[in-house]
C-alpha cells in the first residue's frame, strides 16, 4: 500500500495533462446541464380541448371560461355532440375533451356529487398525465367540492389520482425534477466512462505490460485507477449542484452531506462497473461502446424521462437492478423532499450491496497474467 500515493500522483498528473480529458470532465457536463435542463422541459401548453356542454348553465359557462383563461388549454370547440368529439379526438384535431353533464349545475347547487368526464388522447402518456393534472387543478379551483373527476384514457389508461410526487414540486416545475436527474446522469457518465476508458487505455498503448511485471498489486492498481475518478465525480456533483442552484434555483431541502455520502457509495458501483468493462475489452473504442450500451439502458430506464411507475411490470423489475434509478430517486428525495437517512437507508443498502458484487467480480476478473 505504500506504493499507492505514487500511483495516485501519476494518475492525477496524467488526467490533468490530458488536454481532451479536462473539458470532458468539467466543461461538457455543465454545458449538458444547461442545455438538457432547458430542453427536457415537459411543460405542455396549448392543449387543444373540446368541451361538450349539455348543461348550458351559468355554472358550466363559468367553468368553460376558466379553461379558456388557462395558459395550458386552448378551447377549440364547444358543442354537445359526444360522438363528434370522440371523432375529433380520433382525427387528432383535439388532445382532450371535457363532458359537462346536463345535471351539472343542479348537482352543484344541491350538494350532490358532481361528475365531469375528461377524455384524453393517451398516445403520449406523459402529455395525458399532465393534461389530467392541469384540468384537475382548474376544476378544483373552480369548486373545491368537485373531487371525483372521472377520467377515461382513450388509448392508454391513466390513473385517476394525482401522483404524490407532485406534492413536493407544487408548480409541477419540470426543472426541479429534471435537474437532479440530469445531475445523476452526468455523475454516472463521468464515473463509468472515464474509469473504464482509463484502464483500457493502458492496455491499448501497452503500458499495462510494463506495469504488470512490477510488484504492484492488483488492489493497488485498481484503487490507483478508480480513486481519482471517484474524487472527480464527487467534485462534479458539487459543481452541478452549484450550477443547478444558481441558474435553475432548484430547491435543496435535504442534507448535502447525506447526498454526498450516498453518491460516494453509488460511485463505487459505477466505477466498479467501468472496471469490469475494462477487464474484458481491449481498446478504448470497445470499452466506450460497451459502456454506452449499459448507460443508455440505465439512463432510459432510470426514471428520468419515463416515470418508472408508468413502465410495464417486467420493465419495472429490470429497474430493480438499475443503479442509476436509485441514484435519481435519492437525488430527488433528498433535494426536493428533504428525506433523511432513515428514509433512504434502504437505497444505501441496495447500492452498497451492488457495489460489493460488481467490484468483487471486477477484481476477480482483472488478471495481471494471461492464461
Amino acid at each position, binding site marked *: 500500500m505504500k506504493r499507492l500515493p505514487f500511483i495516485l500522483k501519476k494518475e492525477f498528473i*496524467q488526467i490533468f495533462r490530458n488536454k481532451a480529458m479536462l473539458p470532458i470532465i468539467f466543461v461538457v457536463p455543465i454545458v449538458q446541464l444547461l442545455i438538457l435542463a432547458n430542453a427536457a422541459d415537459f411543460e405542455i401548453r396549448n392543449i387543444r380541448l373540446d368541451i361538450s356542454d349539455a348543461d348550458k348553465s351559468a355554472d358550466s359557462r363559468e367553468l368553460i371560461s376558466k379553461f379558456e383563461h388557462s395558459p395550458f388549454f386552448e378551447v377549440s370547440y364547444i358543442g354537445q355532440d359526444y360522438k363528434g368529439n370522440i371523432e375529433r379526438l380520433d382525427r387528432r384535431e383535439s388532445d382532450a375533451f371535457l363532458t359537462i353533464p346536463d345535471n351539472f349545475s343542479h348537482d352543484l347547487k344541491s350538494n350532490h356529487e358532481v361528475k365531469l368526464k375528461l377524455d384524453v388522447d393517451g398516445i403520449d402518456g406523459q402529455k395525458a398525465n399532465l393534461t389530467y393534472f392541469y384540468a384537475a387543478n382548474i376544476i378544483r379551483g373552480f369548486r373545491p367540492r368537485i373531487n371525483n373527476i372521472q377520467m377515461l384514457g382513450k388509448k392508454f389508461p391513466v390513473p385517476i389520482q394525482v401522483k404524490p410526487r407532485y406534492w413536493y414540486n407544487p408548480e409541477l416545475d419540470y426543472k426541479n425534477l429534471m435537474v437532479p436527474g440530469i445531475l445523476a446522469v452526468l455523475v454516472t457518465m463521468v464515473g463509468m466512462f472515464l474509469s473504464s476508458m482509463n484502464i483500457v487505455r493502458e492496455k491499448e498503448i501497452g503500458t499495462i*505490460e510494463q506495469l504488470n511485471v*512490477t510488484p504492484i498489486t492488483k488492489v493497488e492498481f485498481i484503487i490507483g485507477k478508480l480513486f481519482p475518478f471517484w474524487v472527480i465525480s464527487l467534485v462534479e456533483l458539487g459543481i452541478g449542484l452549484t450550477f443547478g442552484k444558481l441558474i435553475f434555483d432548484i430547491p435543496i431541502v435535504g442534507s448535502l452531506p447525506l447526498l454526498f455520502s450516498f453518491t460516494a457509495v453509488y460511485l463505487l458501483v459505477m466505477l466498479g462497473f467501468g472496471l469490469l468493462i475494462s477487464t474484458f475489452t481491449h481498446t478504448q473504442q470497445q470499452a466506450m461502446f460497451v459502456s454506452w450500451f449499459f448507460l443508455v439502458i440505465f439512463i432510459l430506464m432510470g426514471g428520468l424521462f419515463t416515470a418508472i411507475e408508468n413502465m410495464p411490470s417486467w420493465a419495472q423489475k429490470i429497474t430493480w437492478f438499475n443503479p442509476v434509478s436509485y441514484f435519481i430517486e435519492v437525488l430527488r428525495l433528498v433535494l426536493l423532499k428533504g428525506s433523511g437517512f432513515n428514509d433512504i437507508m434502504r437505497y444505501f443498502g441496495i447500492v452498497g450491496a451492488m457495489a460489493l458484487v460488481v467490484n468483487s467480480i471486477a477484481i476477480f476478473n482483472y488478471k495481471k497474467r494471461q492464461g
Partner: protein
Amino acid sequence: MLTVSNISKSYGEVRALNGINFEVDRGELFGLIGPDGAGKTSLFRIIATLLLPDSGDVSFDGHDVITDYEFVRKNVGYMPGRFSLYQDLSVKENLEFFATIFNTTVQENKHLIEDIFKQLEPFQNRRAGDLSGGMKQKLALSCALIHKPTMLLLDEPTTGVDAISRKEFWGMLQRLKKEGITIVVSTPYMDESKLCDRVALIQDGAIMDLDTPSGIVNRFDKTVYKVTGNNQYQLLSKIRTMDGVQNAYPFGSSLHVYGSPELNLSGRLDEHFPDADIQVEIIPADIEDTFMNLMTRDHE
C-alpha cells in the same frame, strides 16, 4: 540462472511455442534469434510472468516463474517489444514512477544507468512520447534497470531503431553484462547475434540450434559462394535450377549460393551467361547463412 524446460503454448489452433528448452547462465548475454512470429515474444511474456504456458516449467534463480511470480517481478527487468512507457509523462516522471513502485529511488541505482542517463539528462522534462526512437529505447532500458534487476529481458529492443543507436544500445548491453546482469535479448537482426555469448535460433515455436555464434557457424557443412553480377533475378532463377545447388538467396547486392565444394559454379555460370560479368568467390559462412539454411531445412 534461468532454466526453461519443455515450454509449450498454443493460441487456439496456433502453436506458438512447441517444447522449448534452454538454460541461461549467470552473467550471460543470451540471444533469441528468429523471424517475426517465431514465438519470441510469447516466450518472453512467459518468463516475465505475463503469460501462463500450457505446459512446461521456467525457473529463475531457483524460483518457479509460475508460482513464485512475486520474486520474479522484483528481480527481473522486462522491456517489451512495443514502447510501453507513459508517453504523456516526462522522462523524469517515468523514471521516478517506476523507481517508486519498486520501492526504490532513481538516485539509489543511478550507477547502473549512469551512461544512459547522461544522454537522457538534457531531455529530462520532455514527454516520453516526444523522444526520438533511439532515446525512447534508452529510456525504456533505464526504466527496466531502475530496480537493479539481476536479469534483463529485452524483447526486440533494437527493432525500428537507426544503425547508430543500435550500435550504442549493444554497447550498453556489454557494459551491463560487466556489471554481472544476465541478459536475454531477442532480435530479428542476425548481425546482432554475433554480439551474444550464445544464441538460440527459433523458428515456428521451436529451437533449431543453440550454441555460441561461432559454434553454430562451425557446424555449417556447406560451401558458400558469393555471386555478384548484373541482373540478379535472372541469375538467381538460373542458379536455383542447377544440379548440386541446395539453396540460393539474395544477400544485399550479391547472391549467396550453398552447395558442395565441387560445384564449379563459376565455370557453369560462364557457360550460361557468356557475355555477363559475373564474379564468384567462396566466402566463410556466417550466422545468417546458417540460419537461412536451417529455416529451409525445417520447411522441407
